[in-house]
């Protein structure tokens, strides 16, 4: 019998074609069906959650081909992730029905997001890495489609392409990693078990490490990490995420803040046992990449003027925190995963809130994105301003918001990491990242909401009806209150609760830094307004504004100087042989035309031909028979 939990991803998949068809005839009702299907998924996930209160996992699978099986595996980690995805999708989908209200192609939008949500839920619950990879590609494809949803904007089309190509690098490495793991494991697994089955991998990680050697396992896991790095926009493959903001803002909220970009983090969390039992490089790579990205993206976020890009850099930075938290697990054990997942859930809530608030602003400002042209919106749209303030405070981890609990615990964990391993770099980067977070968040907030309107559009801004803001209100409420479930959450993921409480001076440091950051941001804002902030000529500013030249490294050096010449060389060689190949086809058909000349229609000739032919064949056989 088919397990009912397969419907978790099958329901939104059903919405994918139907939403398109319904919308085609009754465009008014676009989004209703997909919302219902997502609600169904959410209900199923909650059922799974209730079931898992007393059980360890749900596992149902069928053989797909050879020794690759296809099925679902839901354990505590999965159900949390799935619940987050389903819930956020529902909230954002409801909001999108308002946001996309006037778009003539909104049925396509909703059918593509349905496919995306199906892919994302499928990715979360899949029981085999191959299936996981399939869904991983589906979400990548949907990301491409949805970033380029307004394909008539050249920027959007270019951004979609960029996102697709950059994540493709990671996908390639991921699939190589699967190949490494498969070829090594295929002779190790007991019969009847797929070598890439997730439950097998995570429950027998120690055995696998001793069977194939920790270094080989480290190679495989680092290749998986590369996939995760591309998907979760970590350094150095982060370049696609800021550009992806060209898509509709609800897409940014759904895909590029709450769900898809966390898939990379989820992959590392899912395969954490493999990372743990591989040689120590792999988790060290995770923590360093994560912590560095958290710090690095924070710097970039300070100088950006596009409201959505600020949020995008903040997403990259926060994903760095999650990655780092999981990487900390190399020293502090599985609670690293619990910290990372908790921050993942909290981040999804407040970042979606921020994005949707930004969407409300952009809707009334007609997609004017430059924060220098806004200003004074607090008075024009107070409801949005308050909602966004809650999101910003959560992002800056000011107590008592949920962000304080989730991020504070990661930084405490990093301190514990320092105490146990003597490596201070992660803690340092993460705690400095805190100050940067506060600066870029509130610089944006102040520029958008304080002062006087600095453009015609900003003067006419207004709040939408409160009913449309209801998803935001739900999320704002959650941002404020999710801190309560910190300990139960850790217990559910980890099985036991480790709350690290470092010395008071260290423990208070993140909050102090955040507050300091807000003050600095206010200073920057004041200077900005008065026009004293003339740093355009400053070389440091230039470097940061140009994103440390990473985009140019990829496009101008790697693509244009290395890959294009190679492609050109290959192309030239191919053109040279193309003629040869074309003429080969012609030669073959000419031979055929000659062959047809023996069809004379002359019966004596036919008989003679037959006799001669058989004699020749017989002669050949005689010669061969002698051999």
């Amino acid at each position, binding site marked *: 019998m088919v397990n009912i939990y397969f419907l978790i991803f099958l329901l939104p998949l059903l919405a994918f074609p139907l939403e398109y068809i319904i919308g085609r005839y009754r465009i008014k009702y676009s989004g209703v069906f997909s919302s219902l299907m997502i609600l169904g998924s959410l209900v199923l996930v909650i059922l799974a959650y209730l079931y898992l209160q007393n059980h360890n996992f749900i596992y149902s699978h069928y053989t797909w081909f050879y020794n690759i099986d296809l099925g679902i595996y839901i354990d505590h980690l999965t159900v949390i992730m799935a619940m987050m995805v389903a819930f956020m999708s529902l909230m954002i989908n409801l909001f999108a029905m308002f946001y996309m209200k006037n778009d003539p192609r909104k049925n396509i939008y909703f059918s593509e997001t349905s496919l995306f949500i199906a892919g994302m839920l499928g990715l979360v619950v899949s029981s085999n890495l191959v299936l996981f990879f399939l869904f991983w590609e589906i979400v990548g494809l949907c990301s491409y489609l949805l970033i380029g949803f307004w394909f008539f904007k050249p920027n959007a089309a270019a951004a979609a392409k960029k996102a697709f190509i950059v994540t493709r690098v990671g996908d390639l490495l991921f699939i190589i990693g699967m190949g490494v793991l498969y070829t090594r494991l295929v002779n190790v697994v007991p019969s009847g078990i797929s070598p890439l089955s997730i439950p097998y991998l995570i429950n027998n990680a120690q055995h696998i490490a001793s069977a194939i050697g920790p270094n080989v396992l480290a190679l495989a896991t680092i290749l998986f990490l590369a996939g995760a790095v591309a998907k979760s926009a970590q350094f150095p493959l982060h370049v696609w995420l800021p550009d992806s903001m060209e898509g509709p803002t609800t897409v940014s909220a759904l895909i590029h803040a709450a769900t898809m970009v966390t898939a990379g983090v989820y992959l590392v969390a899912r395969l954490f046992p493999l990372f743990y039992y591989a040689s120590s490089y792999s988790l060290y790579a995770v923590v360093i990449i994560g912590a560095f990205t958290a710090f690095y993206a924070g710097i970039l976020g300070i100088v950006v003027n596009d409201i959505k890009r600020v949020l995008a850099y903040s997403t990259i930075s926060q994903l760095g925190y999650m990655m780092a938290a999981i990487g900390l697990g190399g020293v502090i054990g599985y609670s690293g995963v619990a910290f990372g997942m908790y921050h993942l859930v909290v981040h999804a809530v407040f970042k979606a809130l921020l994005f949707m608030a930004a969407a409300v602003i952009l809707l009334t400002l007609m997609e004017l994105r430059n924060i220098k042209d806004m200003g004074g919106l607090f008075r024009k749209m107070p409801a949005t301003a308050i909602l966004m303030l809650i999101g910003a405070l959560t992002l800056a981890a000011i107590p008592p918001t949920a962000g304080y609990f989730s991020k504070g615990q990661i930084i405490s964990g990093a301190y514990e990491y320092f105490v146990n391993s003597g490596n201070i770099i992660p803690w340092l980067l993460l705690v400095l990242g805190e100050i940067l977070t506060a600066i870029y968040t509130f610089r944006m907030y102040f520029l958008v909401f304080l002062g006087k309107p600095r453009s015609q559009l900003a003067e006419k801004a207004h709040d939408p009806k409160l009913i449309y803001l209801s998803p935001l209100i739900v999320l704002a409420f959650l941002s404020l209150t999710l801190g309560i479930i910190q300990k139960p959450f850790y217990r559910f993921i980890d099985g036991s609760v480790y709350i690290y409480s470092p010395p008071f001076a260290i423990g208070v440091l993140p909050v102090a830094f955040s507050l300091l950051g807000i003050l600095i941001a206010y200073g920057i804002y004041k200077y900005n307004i008065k026009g004293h902030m003339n740093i355009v000529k400053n070389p440091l500013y230039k470097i940061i504004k140009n994103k440390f030249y990473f985009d140019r490294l990829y496009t101008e050096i790697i693509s244009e100087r290395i890959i294009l010449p190679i492609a050109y060389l290959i192309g030239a060689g191919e053109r040279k042989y193309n003629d040869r190949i074309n003429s080969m*086809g012609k030669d*073959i*058909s*000419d*031979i*055929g*035309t000659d*062959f*047809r000349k*023996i*069809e004379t*229609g002359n*019966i004596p000739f*036919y*008989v003679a*031909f*037959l006799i*001669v*032919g*058989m004699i020749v*064949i*017989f002669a*050949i*056989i005689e010669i*061969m*028979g002698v051999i």
Partner: protein
Amino acid sequence: MNYEYLYALILLGLAGFIALAAGIKTDNKKILGGFAFIVLIAAFFIILFQQKNYSIASLNISSFDTYWALIFLVSIMVVIIPSMNDIKKRFDVYYAILLFMALSMVIAAFTYNLIVLFVSFEGVSIATYILTAFNKTKRNLEASLKYFMISTVGTSFNIMGISFFYLSTKTFNLNAVGIISFNRALLLSLVFITIGFGFKIAIFPMQQWAIDAYDGAPNSVSAFLSTGGKLIAYMILLKFLFLGFIPDYNYVFFFFAILAILTMTYGNLAALMENNLKRILAYSSVAQAGYMILVFALIGYSYYPAVLVSKEIFVRFAIASAMFYAIAYIFMKAGPFIAMSLVKKDKVMIDDIAGLARASRWTALFFAIMLLSLAGVPLTGGFIAKYFLFFSLIIGNLWWLAVIAIINSAISMYYYFRIIIYTYRKEGENNFNMDPGIKYSVIIMGLITLGLGVSFALYTYLAGIALI
């Protein structure tokens, strides 16, 4: 003597005479055709449900033989309804001939005695001479005459081969012969018999009549000639080769490998630039014969020391793939020939099919599916047939032969797709003969071709009955 096993034969023979007698009163094609169709279906079910593994006189009834008998009946069934359109008059004689032919074919399927095989084979041959000339147009008569003349040569080769066989084994019964030691007379008999029956299969040096005859015959008769008429000779060779003897593996293997390579290469290359549609299909039929006799090469090879897997499994695979190929071949080959009746001309050029898709979307689609099946595109019966054939070649360590066949298959894509492109061209000004008998025959046969594309279970069943 238990006559239960002769019911189907008696039914077919009697029905033939009844059809002839009915001709005195009526020449209504629907009555006569319907009668023949019902009789064939009845015979089909009688044979399907009768007890297997029984021997009576020179008839030997096993699952293997039953399968071939059923295939032959199907190959006649598929032309009954389309012929109502092709044949102009004297339907009583026409359907009576078809029924008598069915009788001969069923007997051939059930016997292992060379004399009986020969007689029943001639029964089919002589019937097809008449059918080819049935409309008495100039083209029909010319085709029939060529076919008749050349086949006479083939028949004489057959008789010679059978005589040589008797000389070296002192029996006509293939079952009675085990594996015997190398013997020149026996080898000669193999070569002669291959030439004789190879005429019907259209193996390379004997293929020339086939192009003319398929081109000149009425379309449904071409359909039968290239399916049933071929398969009966193919089955006789299979029985002869597999049950009769393997005198010297080197000779048998190289003989058939060379014939197969020549046949398929010739058929595929010659079809590339041909513009006469029926001739393209005829060349394609030659090429398909090349793939099919790869099985003979495989059987010859099975006694080779280099065979990796056990001989029995190896031969079982090869024969099962031949049997699957046969059933897929009937539908995918007869279908396009029957579809030629859509064109309101005797001589069908490739331009004449242009615009078929505009005239009837579904007919064009299923016509295309059958052509794709001939080319071996996945999801069609032709793909599965080729897949298992090449698969058995590869497990038998004959991968180089498989490579040649696959290259040939790739070349053949060209002319099949060429036809498909023409059918989907918009500018065609042609009018098509949308007779429901033709149209629905094409659609149903296309559907069956698609259905065979997913019937792996049939192959498993065939592998079970392949060795009798």
